[in-house]
């Protein structure tokens, strides 16, 4: 993505001022730690220390759009008849600060399924009023592999404005109209010099090469298709998986959900919450379960991301953020699986 060459910059020390200014119009979310767990949380108005330690969140920013749980509607029996009440529409204007390119790309991937045919009102309404301020990575994790998925640590494709760490300052570039408009409205930004621009270019170049984990995505869907029935392979690959939901629930592109009701004293709520294809009950029907065995579930996870989603929506449902590798309790590594797919027999 080519960025317009009309960039601004802000000193890292002045991030607080910038966020304060934006807080007047938006509810601002920044990376923060709760008991060591990094997530995007409401900015407290002062703390900008994340500038020093932030690499990426544990809870993916998808949680802002498809929360771990949400009320779909409430129902109440009134004079023998049910009345449904939808939650008030979420009109709050939010600004998510320092979202990583991989996570922003993930939202563009999620848009496809939630816009498909029947529009998902909950997700899409949140998408409308949230501004994404991207921050390019200068220190990717050893589990990151975004460069294998046509992206990079400085990919600005799906953010509204993009920040690049150029040392003592952040270079700021508008990407979308909304982003450019915000820059225009923001006071106190300095004009970036040509030197800043070239410094940013160097930083981007350098961080691109810091991502060393690679997968080969060429013909990945046909490779997966040809080994789909290779039970032995999938059983071997799945052996150490413990079928927990970490890699899926905390994946920025996983969107599976469950719907359930609760009724307390005639007051009912229908919830939806994250669900995972790693759980055996996910597909369980009264008489049978098409994915009872662990290897079928592991295969589903891999193939959904790299084969089925690609077939249905033209894009791989993975952005290489590496959370599934980093957070896995048994170090189950999807890149190893993808790199060891058996050749066609």
């Amino acid at each position: 993505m080519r960025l317009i060459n009309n960039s601004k910059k802000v000193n890292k020390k002045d991030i607080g001022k910038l966020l304060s200014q934006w807080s007047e119009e938006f509810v601002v979310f920044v990376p923060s730690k709760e008991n060591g767990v990094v997530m995007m949380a409401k900015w407290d108005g002062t703390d900008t220390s994340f500038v020093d330690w932030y690499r990426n969140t544990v809870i993916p920013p998808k949680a802002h759009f498809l929360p771990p749980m949400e009320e779909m509607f409430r129902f109440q029996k009134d004079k023998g008849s049910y009345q449904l009440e939808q939650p008030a529409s979420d009109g709050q204007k939010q600004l998510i600060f320092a979202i990583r390119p991989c996570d922003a790309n993930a939202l563009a991937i999620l848009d496809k399924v939630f816009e498909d045919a029947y529009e998902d009102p909950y997700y899409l309404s949140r998408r409308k009023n949230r501004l994404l301020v991207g921050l390019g990575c200068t220190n990717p994790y050893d589990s990151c592999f975004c460069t294998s998925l046509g992206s990079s640590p400085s990919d600005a494709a799906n953010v509204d404005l993009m920040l690049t760490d150029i040392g003592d300052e952040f270079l700021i570039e508008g990407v979308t109209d909304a982003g450019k408009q915000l820059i225009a409205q923001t006071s106190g930004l300095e004009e970036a010099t040509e030197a800043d621009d070239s410094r940013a270019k160097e930083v981007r170049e350098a961080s691109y090469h810091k991502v060393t984990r690679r997968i080969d995505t060429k013909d990945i869907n046909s490779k997966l298709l040809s080994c789909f029935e290779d039970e032995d392979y999938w059983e071997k690959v799945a052996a150490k998986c413990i079928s927990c939901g970490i890699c899926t629930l905390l994946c920025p592109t996983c969107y599976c959900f469950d719907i359930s009701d609760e009724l307390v004293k005639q007051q009912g709520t229908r919830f939806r919450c994250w669900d995972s294809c790693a759980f055996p009950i996910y597909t369980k029907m009264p008489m049978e379960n098409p994915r009872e065995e662990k290897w079928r579930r592991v295969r589903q996870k891999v193939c959904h991301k790299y084969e089925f989603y690609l077939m249905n929506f033209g894009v791989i449902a993975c952005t290489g953020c590496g959370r599934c590798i980093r957070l896995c309790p048994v170090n189950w590594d999807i890149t190893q699986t993808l790199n060891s797919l058996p050749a066609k027999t």
Partner: protein
Amino acid sequence: MEQKLRREAKALLEQGQVDYIVGFEPGSLKFTTTPLITRDKEEVDRLVINPFIVNNLANFLTELKGRVGIIAKGCDSRSIVSLIQDNKVAREDVVILGIPCPGIIDLSKVEELIGKDRDELEAISREGDKVVITADGKTSEFSITEVLFDNCLGCELPTPQEYDILLGEPTLPVTDRSASQAKIEQLKGMPPQPRWEFWSNELSRCIRCYACRNVCPACFCQRCFVEETEPQWLMPVPRWQDNLMFQVIRNIHVAGRCTDCGECERACPVNIPLRSLTKEMYDIVGELFHFKAGMDKDTAPLMTHYEQEEAEDFIR
């Protein structure tokens, strides 16, 4: 030790004494290991033993069909014994390759101490009672009490009691176990209401990934109560109330089976201090019923037997 392990494992496979070897191999990330479950005698050359062999491999025993040669640290061996007590695993179907365990390094503690993430460190090595860490070319030394997992600091039996082959010399537990109890003692010092609030707060982060349950060898139920729908005990929705109820019941269900291996807390992606629950339950079981999980394969499981005279004072 590693060489001996590989030799023994290879021999077990070659002689047909076991169908599987379950051990550790180097992980795909720095300072990590990953379970190696294999029938292939060439692959056993990848087996390792180092201060990062975190997983409790007993977890895999219930799902593997056939005879298994399994690498076990002190706590893991007790989990195996506990599974034998519960008739989940037959003693003759496992060959236990015991490792006297000097304690496992808690990378999150290292990260906290150094102020850098795991992948930014250059080297971590264990030297006696010290751990030496290199970052940015600088080395620093820490006492093991600062960097081992809490449960390792509190470990009473680092050397497996039940084994077929013991790799290396028996090792002694850490002498001062107080550090391992620090969090729990701190909680106990709080009045009840703040304590309840502490737990509801911590559990409000839970996303119900069930990693705590799924890494736990003591959680071997085919169908967990959280998955029951008739009646539905818990909502699948990750609200703190349901999350908290899940943890309480899980702890009661594994009482007498939990060996304080600490896997639940380590696996938790949102850092809920789960060991502060499991360890307290472990202690309650010891205090009320003088029972320790996985000590003797011929003892009946805790909840299936009773003494005529015990823990009565609360009954009217």
